């Protein structure tokens, strides 16, 4: 309580700091509300960042400042790692970057709970609710950290993108680990001394996180990333309650709420429940029930870049349907070049974006925005579906399941009921694909065998570039 100056006494006053925290979370909310439109979004994000700076500075207003060197080194080192990573990452690698940043956030929450446990001698003499909230944030933070790292590994191609599971043992093992985690949690709240229990808790929740995400295949990644984001938010909010820090509570809870909404929207867009995604389903490499083996149902018509160019050049309206394949071959700039050329020939070009195209919510929009595609040419599914019957050519670039008509017509299909882009209603469909392998969901797509459809095989970027070359000489 050594107050050196009147200023210091004001700065370290509890109510003054509480007001600064209120200011900072006010800025978070105001900033996030700016994200509702592309024009206000940049400013909104920066306003939220200002809120963050205020919150950090406020936290450092303590009378006896301990560990200053450590804190400075930590902040400088963190910046030195975070900024270059964020600046260099390619837009196509954005899903794994977000997964990674989300993971370290979750890891931070879990570690803070651990440190809190150690510092209070296992929550000895601390209100029970503080222990409960801290245990909650340790569990959820750890699940989020390991789950996100697996998601990162899958998206980065470090581990198989398909489903990795224990088969029939998956659910029992998962339940056992969950029970063990909860038992550790109860033990910590009840018996305040043993550190082995919190380590056990962190390890078990880590295993749970691995078991949770490993069986989920690439196609379900938008749902998973969004869910893990919500987890980290909720863990942060719980940490806020246990540390009695209102800025943490509000910020964490807002993220928790937004992550939950997004997850829900993604699941709805795939006509699946969040539970069915987590329990694991077609996201894996399980072979499709239809067809059997790699038997083809009917004939596939292959076409050439020159034909595609002619077809599109004489069209009134071309709708581009991008999917993960466009991201993989980084074809977005080539697509934009081609679209410009088509527009100069008087063709209307629009882009149909399925909510779960790609590997994270809004993935395609980011890539096309990177290639300077005008914002108002990007059409959401409900807006564009009515237009396909007036469309001459639908150009499907590396998208598969989101165009599969089985979702409308075949009740025994795993994706039956999922809202899709009705490209088969357009005059003709051109599908750019590397080979006839089925998509991420491992389901045959009858669109490819439709008489209206012709396939242009090859790497999406290369194919688009050769189409562009052909367009130039037309």
């Amino acid at each position, binding site marked *: 309580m050594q107050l050196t100056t009147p200023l210091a006494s004001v700065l370290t006053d509890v109510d003054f700091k509480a007001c600064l925290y209120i200011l900072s979370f006010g800025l978070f909310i105001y900033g*996030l509300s700016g994200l509702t439109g592309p024009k206000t979004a940049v400013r909104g994000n920066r306003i939220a960042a200002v809120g963050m700076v205020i919150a950090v500075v406020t936290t450092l207003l303590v009378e006896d*400042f301990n560990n200053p060197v450590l804190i400075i080194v930590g902040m400088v080192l963190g910046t030195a790692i975070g900024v270059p990573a964020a600046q260099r990452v390619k837009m196509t690698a954005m899903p794994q970057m977000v997964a990674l940043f989300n993971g370290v956030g979750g890891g931070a929450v879990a570690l803070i709970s651990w440190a809190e446990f150690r510092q209070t001698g296992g929550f000895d003499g601390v209100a029970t609710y503080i222990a409960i909230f801290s245990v909650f944030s340790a569990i959820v933070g750890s699940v989020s950290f390991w789950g996100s790292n697996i998601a990162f590994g899958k998206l980065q191609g470090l581990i198989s993108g398909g489903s990795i599971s224990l088969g029939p043992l998956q659910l029992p093992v998962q339940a056992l680990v969950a029970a063990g985690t909860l038992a550790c949690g109860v033990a910590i709240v009840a018996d305040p001394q043993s550190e082995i229990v919190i380590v056990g808790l962190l390890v078990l929740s880590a295993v749970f996180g691995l078991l949770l995400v490993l069986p989920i295949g690439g196609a379900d990644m938008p749902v998973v990333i969004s869910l893990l984001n919500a987890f980290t938010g909720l863990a942060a909010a719980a940490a806020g309650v246990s540390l009695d820090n209102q800025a943490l509570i509000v910020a964490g809870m807002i993220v928790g709420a937004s992550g939950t*909404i997004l997850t829900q929207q993604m699941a709805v867009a795939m006509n699946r429940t969040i539970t069915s995604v987590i329990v694991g389903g077609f996201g894996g490499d399980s072979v499709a029930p239809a067809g059997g083996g790699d038997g083809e149902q009917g004939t596939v018509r292959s076409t050439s870049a020159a034909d595609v160019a002619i077809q599109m050049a004489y069209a009134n309206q071309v709708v581009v349907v991008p999917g993960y394949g466009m991201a993989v071959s980084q074809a977005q700039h080539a697509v934009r070049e081609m679209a410009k050329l088509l527009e100069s020939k008087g063709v209307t070009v629009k882009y149909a974006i399925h909510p779960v195209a790609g590997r994270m*919510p809004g993935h395609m929009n980011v890539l096309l925005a990177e290639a300077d595609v005008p914002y108002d040419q990007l059409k959401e599914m409900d807006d564009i579906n009515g237009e396909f019957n007036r469309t001459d050519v639908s150009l499907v670039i590396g998208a598969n399941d989101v165009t599969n008509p089985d979702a409308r017509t075949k009740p025994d299909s795993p994706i039956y009921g999922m809202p899709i882009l009705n490209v088969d209603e357009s005059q003709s469909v051109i599908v750019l694909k590397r080979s006839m392998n089925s998509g991420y969901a491992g389901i045959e797509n009858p669109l490819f065998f439709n008489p209206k459809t012709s396939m242009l095989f090859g790497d999406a970027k290369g194919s688009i570039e050769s189409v562009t070359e052909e367009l130039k000489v037309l």
Partner: protein
Amino acid sequence: MPDLLTGVLAAAGTSETSNLVTNLAILVLAGFVGYAVISKVPNTLHTPLMSGTNAIHGIVVLGGLLLLAEGEDLGTGTTVILFIALLFGVINVIGGFVVTDRMLEMFKTKPTPKGDAEGDA
């Protein structure tokens, strides 16, 4: 009812139980605010939204800062744990905001079609 509300709000900081109640009230309200604000975000901006909220939950860095700055004689183990937590939190916050800014800058350009005719290779 008003009595209950003022009671809850006035009790802030007086005892542990009322702290819990205040914080729970804030927690619930923040959840609804988050829901209300975020439901208006269009599909197109979902990636920046996720990455932006991702940066915001990096606010857990406060927990690390708080425990480090206020803690005396933490011991090596706890100090190391907190240092890693701080490092993780800073990466989350800074990386998250920078990456979101990069993405949003791309969306900001040219809201009208045919803004640029030639020029970019």
